[in-house]
C-alpha cells in the first residue's frame, strides 16, 4: 500500500519537479551564455499559455496520440516509483514514444515527417543502450526490480561506472540536448522548423511538454539508482550529472543522425561490453 501511495504521489509531483528542472536548466544555460535568463517558473508559464491556445491540428490522430503519450509517461513514472520491473517500465515508455512518432507521421507535413524519422533514429539509438543498462543492473542485483536496487546495499556506480556513462548517452538523447538534438531542435528553424513537433500546437504541445517532463523525471530517476544507498548521494550524483549535461549541451554543436547512430552505438556497446566483462571477471 505504501508503495502505491508513493507512486501516486510521484505521478502528481513529477510534472512539478520536471517543470522546475526545465526552468533551472534554462536559467543555467542562460548564465553559461552570460545571459540573465527567464524566471525559473518559465516552463510553467509556457505550458499554461499553450493550454489556453485555440486548438489547431491536422487530424484527430494527433489528439489520440498525444494523450496516449502522456498516459504512458505517467504510467512509466508510476511503475518506477512502485519499485517495479525496469524492463517492463521501459517497454511501457516505448508505447508513448511510438505513439508520439505515429502522431507526427500522421500529418503529411514534410518537416514533421523528417523530424519523426529522426526521432525514430534517436529511439533506435538509445533503446538498446537503456536495455543494456537494465541488464547490467540485473546482473549486479540479481533482479530487474527497482526495489531490489534499493535492497542491494552498495552503490551500483562502483560496479557499473561505464554503464553510467552509457546511461549518460541515453540521457543526453532523451533530454534532446546537443549534440543529439536532431529531431525537434529549438534552434534549427531552417532545417527542421520544429521537427517532430512542427504540427503539434497549443494544448497538444502542452501535453507533449508535460509528458516530456515525466520522461525526464524517469530518466533522472534511473541515474539516481546508481547511488541508491543514500539520499544526499543521489542528489549530488544527479546535480553533477545534470550540470555535465548542460555543459555538454552548450559546448557541442548539433550533429547528424548518422554520426549519432554510429558513434553512440560504437561507444555505448564498447563501454557496455567492457563493463559487463569486468562484472564477469569480478
Amino acid at each position, binding site marked *: 500500500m505504501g508503495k502505491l501511495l508513493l507512486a501516486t504521489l510521484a505521478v502528481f509531483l513529477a510534472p512539478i519537479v520536471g517543470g522546475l528542472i526545465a526552468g533551472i536548466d534554462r536559467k543555467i544555460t542562460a548564465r553559461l551564455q552570460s545571459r540573465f535568463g527567464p524566471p525559473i517558473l518559465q516552463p510553467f508559464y509556457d505550458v499554461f499559455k499553450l493550454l489556453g491556445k485555440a486548438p489547431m491540428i491536422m487530424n484527430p490522430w494527433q489528439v489520440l496520440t498525444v494523450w496516449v503519450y502522456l498516459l504512458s509517461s505517467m504510467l512509466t513514472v508510476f511503475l518506477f516509483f512502485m519499485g517495479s520491473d525496469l524492463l517492463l517500465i521501459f517497454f511501457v515508455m516505448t508505447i508513448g514514444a*511510438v505513439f508520439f512518432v505515429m502522431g507526427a*507521421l500522421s500529418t503529411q507535413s514534410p518537416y514533421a515527417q523528417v523530424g519523426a524519422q529522426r526521432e525514430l533514429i534517436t529511439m533506435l539509438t538509445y533503446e538498446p543502450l537503456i536495455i543494456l543498462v537494465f541488464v547490467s543492473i540485473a546482473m549486479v542485483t540479481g533482479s530487474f526490480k527497482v526495489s531490489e536496487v534499493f535492497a542491494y546495499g552498495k552503490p551500483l556506480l562502483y560496479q557499473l561506472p561505464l554503464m553510467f556513462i552509457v546511461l549518460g548517452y541515453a540521457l543526453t538523447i532523451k533530454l534532446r540536448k546537443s549534440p543529439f538534438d536532431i529531431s525537434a531542435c529549438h534552434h534549427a528553424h531552417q532545417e527542421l522548423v520544429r521537427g517532430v513537433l512542427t504540427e503539434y500546437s497549443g494544448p497538444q504541445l502542452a501535453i507533449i511538454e508535460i509528458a516530456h517532463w515525466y520522461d525526464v523525471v524517469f530518466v533522472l530517476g534511473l541515474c539516481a539508482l546508481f547511488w541508491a544507498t543514500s539520499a544526499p548521494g543521489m542528489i549530488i550524483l544527479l546535480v553533477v550529472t545534470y550540470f555535465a549535461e548542460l555543459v555538454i549541451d552548450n559546448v557541442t554543436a548539433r550533429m547528424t543522425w548518422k554520426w549519432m547512430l554510429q558513434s553512440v552505438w560504437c561507444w555505448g556497446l564498447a563501454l557496455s561490453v567492457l563493463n559487463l566483462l569486468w562484472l564477469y571477471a569480478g
Partner: protein
Amino acid sequence: MDILVFATVVLPFLAAIALLLLRDKGSRGLIVVGTAVVLAAASLALVGQGAFEYGPKSILGISLDGLITLLDFALLFVILVIAMTKLKNPLVAALTAIQIVGLIYLEFFMMDHGAAKAAPAMFADSLSMIMVLVISIVGSLICVYALGYMPAHEDHLHLARSKQPRFFFYLVAFLGAMNGLVLANSLLWLYFFWEVTTFCSFMLISHDGDETSVKNATRALWMNMTGGVAFVFALIFLQKTGTGLYLSELLKPGFSAAGAAALIPLFMLCYAGITKSAQVPFQSWLTGAMVAPTPVSALLHSSTMVKAGVYLVLRLAPAYAGTMLSGTLAMFGAFTFLTTSALAVGQSNAKKVLAYSTIANLGLIIACAGINTPAAITAAIVIIIFHAVSKALMFLCVGTIEQKIHSRDLEDMRGLYMVMPKTTIVALVGVVTMLLPPFGVLMGKWMAIESAAAMKYMPVTVMLALGSGLTVMFWARWAGILLSTPYPKGVPAEPQAGTVRGPLVLLAAGAVLLSLFVPFIYGGLIEPAVRSSHKAAGFVLDGFNFVNQQGVFYVYPLFLVLGVGFYFAWKQARKVEAADCVGPYLCGAQSPGDDKAFLSTAGAPVGYQASNFYLTWLFGEERLTGPINMVSGVLLAVMLGLLLGGVI
C-alpha cells in the same frame, strides 16, 4: 481419441482430395469452411482431452508404419521426378536421391521391422496441443480468407482455367500434415510429415507458375532438402547407436550423457529445424517465398509451417539442456534475431518486412530454446502463440491492401486510412499487438531478455537488446504512415467480402483477447508444457501477474490503465472538429486548396515528398546479406566442428 486424431490429421487430406475433385466454387467454399469448423472444434476437443499417447497400428488392415514408409518413398520419388524434369535442377535431384538412398539403407538394412515398438507412434503434451490449436484455428481462418482472396488474385492473372482446386488441395492438405507433424512421436512419421510440408510449400510458392516463383520455390526446396538430408542422417545415426527412433526416447533423462553420439543427431535435427525456420543463412528462401499468394505467406511462411522448425528445436530442448549445443543455439538464434531485424529496417516492401520480422521472431524462439531455462521456454511458447496470430493478421492485411492499391510498398500505403479505413484499423491492431505492451508478443520478448540476462549470456543479451530497438523502428513507422491523412473528411465506406473481413476481424479480436486471457492460457497450457519438459515453471502467477525472481509483468493492471486511458484518448480525439483543422506548415507557401504542394514563383503547385529512412547504407540487403551469411555459416560450421571434435 481415434476420431479426434483422425479429424485433425487425416480429415484435411480427405478434404483436400475432395477439393481437387469438386471444382465448382460452391462446393469448394462449403468444404473449406466445413473443414475449418471441424478442425477448430476437433483441436479444442483434443485440448479438452489432455495429454495422451496413441499408437495406431493399422488402418483397414494396412500397417501404418508400412504405409508411411511407402508414402515417404512415393513423395521423394515425386520430388525427384519434378527436380529432373520440370526444374532440371541437379542439386535438388541429388539431395532427394541422397535421402532416398539413406532411407533405403535405414529401412531395409538397419531396422528390424518385426521388433516390438518401443513407444507409441503419436503423443501429445501441452506443447503439441498449443501447436495443434494454432494450426487448426489460425490456419483454418487463413484458409477461409483464401476463399475470398483467390478469385481476385486469379482475375488479376487472367487465367484461362482456374488453378484454385490445386491451390486449395495443397493448402488444406498442409493443415493435416502440420497436425501430424506436431502429434508425431515416431521420428519416421515426423520425417514424413516434415517432407510433406516442404513439398506443399514448394508447390504453393511456385503456384503462379511464372519464372520468379518457380525459381524461388526451387530455392526453398533445396534449402529445405538439406534439412531433410540432415534429418535422414540423424535417423541413421540414432539407429546405429541403438536409440529408438522416437522423440520420447531422445527426451529420456540422461540421453545427452552419451556425449557426441547424442549431440550429433540432435544437432542434425536442430539443423533441419533451422532450415525449416529459414534462419540465417537460409533466410533467402523465406523472403523469396513472398511471391506466393498472400494466404500462403500467412499460413505456411509465418504462422505455421516455419514454426515446425522451432517446434522441433524447442521439443528437443530438454535433450540438449546443459550441453554446449544449447549455448551455441542461443547465440545463433540471437544472431538471427538481430540481423534479420536489421534487414527488415532496410526494406520498403511490406511483405519482405513481414518476412524478415517473422525470421527474427523465429530466431528469438530458437534463442530462447538455447537459453533453455523454464522462463526462456515459457517465452518461446508465448511468442509462438501470439506471433502466429498477429503475424497472420498482418499478412492478411497486406494481402487485402495489395489487392486494393496494387502495391505492397510501404510508401504507397501513406494515408491508407482514406482508402481502406477498416483494414487500416485492423492493420494497426496487428502492429500494436506485435510491438507494444501489454500484448503477448512483447511479453514474450520481455521474458526472453530477462531470462537471457539471468543466464548471463552476454553476447545473447547484447544482440537481443539491439534487435529489440530495430524492431521498434520498422513497426512504428509503418503504423505512422498508414495514418498519414488530412482531416478525414468523408472517410469512404469499405465494402469487403465476408470471407475476407471475417478472418481479419476475428484475428484482430483474437490478438487482443488472447493477450487479455494470457494468465489463463499460461496456467492451462503453457505452464504444463514447460513443466513437462523442464520440471519447473518459469513464472508463478501472483494475482494474474507473471512473477519470478527476475522481475514482474503486470497483466491486468496494465490492461486496465492502458485500456481506460486509451478510451479516454479516443474520446478526446472524437471531439475534434473540422474547424480546428488546418493544413501542414509549408513556410506559408502552400498551394491554395492543396495540402500536398508548395506554390512555385510561377504560381504552379510543386509537390513534395517525404519518405521513410530505410538506412540502406547500413541495413540494406546488398550490404548485409553477404556478411550475415558468412558469419552464420561459420557459426553452424563451428557448432558441427565442435561436436565432431568430440567424437574424434
